[in-house]
């Protein structure tokens, strides 16, 4: 157990360091954008005095390194500063949006992960049959189309023609959960279609890769039926790669939703990011990027820990 704890701490340290590097990159990238922020916001007609006063108010006259330290210090305590566009607290602005995005990601994950792993196991069990091939063709085609295309097709079929689900996922705090789930179904389904292929194919490949192992032959020679061989003997040894792919896709569900949120007008972080970019609301963009980075690092950390926790060789030393 101690071993795991030590490892988690190590990975956590490494994650924090990565986060630090990412924060530097985000900050410098924004810093490198052409043009002066205060000038942009006030417009061409502003006098040099007002621009200078505004610069001072925003703290833009301080050296970059000081501003970076202030920003990082604030972000670490949950204070991302104020939005340049409307002056609201960014933390407050992001709060509900992040919750919405996480809800959508969780919704999609709850459908996609069991579906992908289940289909992957079935495809491995019935490998090289028509079943395996058709699943492969279906998931591969759904990943091959751009997300917005899949989204519009779903809207056309399920919303316009069938009229089962609404085409716009406009929820707010007062929307009851059931209603939310109905309204969010199409975006969740779109995301599911996008991430399933990757996870399903990795599950299938990881399992098939093990089928030539002597211990699988041993299991078959014990008279176990194929489904037991695959579930009990192959799957536990294939978990590490599967977990890693799931983690990557989970991270994608949170950070890659921009297009889907825009198509379905879903009030999530992705849409906020797009809006902020078009409004040159730099502080919000920085905060969003940082949150996305945290998500990626966190999921990779979880994947690492789970991979080790499911490997008896690493968990139980000699």
């Amino acid at each position, binding site marked *: 157990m101690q071993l795991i704890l030590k490892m988690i701490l190590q990975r956590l340290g490494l994650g924090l360091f990565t986060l630090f590097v990412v924060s530097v990159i985000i900050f410098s990238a924004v810093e490198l954008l052409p043009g002066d922020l205060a000038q942009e916001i006030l417009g061409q007609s502003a006098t040099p005095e007002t621009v200078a006063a505004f610069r001072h108010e925003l703290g833009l006259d301080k050296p970059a390194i000081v501003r970076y330290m202030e920003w990082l210090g604030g972000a670490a305590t949950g204070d991302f500063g104020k939005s340049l566009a409307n002056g609201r607290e960014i933390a407050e602005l992001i709060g509900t949006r992040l919750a919405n995005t996480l809800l959508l990601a969780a919704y999609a994950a709850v459908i996609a992960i069991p579906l992908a792993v289940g289909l992957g196991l079935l495809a491995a069990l019935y490998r090289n049959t028509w079943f395996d091939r058709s699943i492969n063709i279906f998931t591969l085609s759904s990943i091959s189309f751009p997300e917005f295309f899949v989204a519009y097709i779903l809207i056309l079929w399920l919303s316009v023609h069938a009229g089962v689900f609404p085409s716009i996922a406009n929820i707010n705090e007062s929307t009851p959960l059931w209603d939310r789930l109905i309204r969010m179904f199409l975006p969740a389904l779109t995301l599911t279609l996008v991430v399933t292929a990757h996870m399903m194919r990795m599950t299938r490949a990881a399992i098939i890769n093990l089928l*030539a*192992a*002597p*211990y699988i*032959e*041993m*299991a*078959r*020679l*014990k*008279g*176990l*039926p194929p489904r*037991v061989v695959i579930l*009990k*003997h192959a799957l*536990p*040894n294939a978990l590490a790669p599967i977990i890693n792919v799931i983690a990557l896709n989970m991270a994608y569900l949170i950070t890659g939703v921009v297009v889907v949120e825009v198509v379905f007008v879903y009030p999530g972080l992705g849409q906020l990011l797009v809006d902020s970019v078009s409004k040159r609301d730099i502080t919000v963009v920085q905060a969003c990027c940082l949150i996305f980075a945290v998500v990626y690092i966190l999921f990779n950390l979880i994947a690492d820990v789970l991979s080790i926790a*499911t490997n*008896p*060789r690493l968990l*139980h030393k*000699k």
Partner: protein
Amino acid sequence: MADTDEILLSIRGLKIEGRSEEVWSEIVHGVDLDLHRGEVLGLIGESGAGKSTIGLAAMGFTRDGCRISGGTVTFDGIELTRSSVRTRRALRGKRIAYVAQSAAASFNPAHRLIDQCTESAVHHHVMSRSEAEHDAIDLFRRIQLPDPEDIGFRYPHQVSGGQLQRAMTAMAMSCRPDLIIFDEPTTALDVTTQIEVLAAIRDAVEQFGTAAIYITHDLAVVAQMADRILVLLKGDPVEEADTRTMLAEPQEEYTKSLWAVRSFKRPEKPLAPPEETPVVSVDHVTAAYGTLTVLHDVSFDIHRGRTVAVVGESGSGKSTAARCITGLLPPTEGTILFNGEELAADYRKRSWDHLRQIQMIYQMADTALNPKQRIRDIVGRPIEFYLGLKGKKKEERIRALLDQIELEPDDFIDRLPAELSGGQKQRIGIARALAAEPEFIICDEVTSALDQLVAEGILKLLAKLQDDFNLAYMFITHDLATVKAIADEVVVMKEGKVVEAGPKSEMFRPPHHAYTDLLLSSVPEMDPDWLDNLLKEREEAGVKIESAGN
């Protein structure tokens, strides 16, 4: 011995095909065999004889890419080749069990031993889970695993290879099957461990009156285990007889040649005069991997034209010593001398000439040759690299080397390693080492992956080359038959220390160091009573030691 005359398994005209590159070709050409209840049948032959394939077919099972194309396999009245998948599955594990060659690979790394050992019994509803656990612990005890109460709750990687192999026998016994297929169960083990496993298997089979098919390429092992022996060659039966009859008077030429393999023995050369400087001198070397010290103050000399065999079990430090000599693992203490001159500890700091003088031949010729290069390039590279020969001169040299290793140059020079047999690949490995024109060659288990007849050819070749070029060999092996055949001097290692060293004739003559004695006495002999006698002897010796202690 056969308990009854009732026939348990009957195979008639069994034909099996294997697929390679979409073409089916026959690999077993009509084999008949009968097995009575409680009888042990030995299947022997070299690799490619179809032993394992036939063993698996006795369970109605074929590996992927194989199929039964003819004949019948009748187990206790059930014809397996025509029965349903369900019927066959119901027999497997319950009435016919399998013990695989490598227990380390055949135990699932993700589950504890006890889960795997009780799986068959629980799955086939022979016992409840808790009954099966009690029974497994009881079997562990009978099979003399240490700590039988707890060993089952460990994962496979926490248990040694010999113990795993015994646990696998316990696993096969869990449903008290009528028949067990043992597929080379001791091939991957050291000789001293092999004895324990052989004894455990034989006890278990005798206690429960289980019939068995014992597959091996080792005649001496099969002589201990089997009541009857069937010799196979390339998927054809050659000869079948009672073990004693077969050992005493083999009828067929092929069987006789198998029996004769162990007869190759080159005369031992006298010790080099003490004033002669050894080619390689390992001088008080201590070496470590990280914080783990694996060699403790090891010293030995190797003289020109002599073969020094370094023997010991896995983990004894034989290969580490070789890594120190080659400079791959710089020793923490001590030095390596070459013709009296001190070598740099790290190979990167050694001179070109020193690098050329020390060459290696590896155990796995398969992985030691680049599969994408032709023989011309594999052998030509060191010629160009060390001797600077190019073009026509290089070509001539390659051809001369191929002649020396007894492969026809025109036929072989443009082949890829995949187009060679195991023995031919090892010959190319030898040619590559020779190409640098070294004085000293390290042979690391060069024959242990080869069949005995092929291995003998390699040993003869090495002996001939030694005479031609006055080479010094360091011959790393765990196989004492090979030592007897080729060594002049022997160094016995255990746990990173040299236990005993001296000329071969002295080493094989008592009195020995206790460990050397254990090692020597553990080599199976072609006498069916050898195992019984040895176990009895050891037991008596053990009793004596104990009583002396009192």
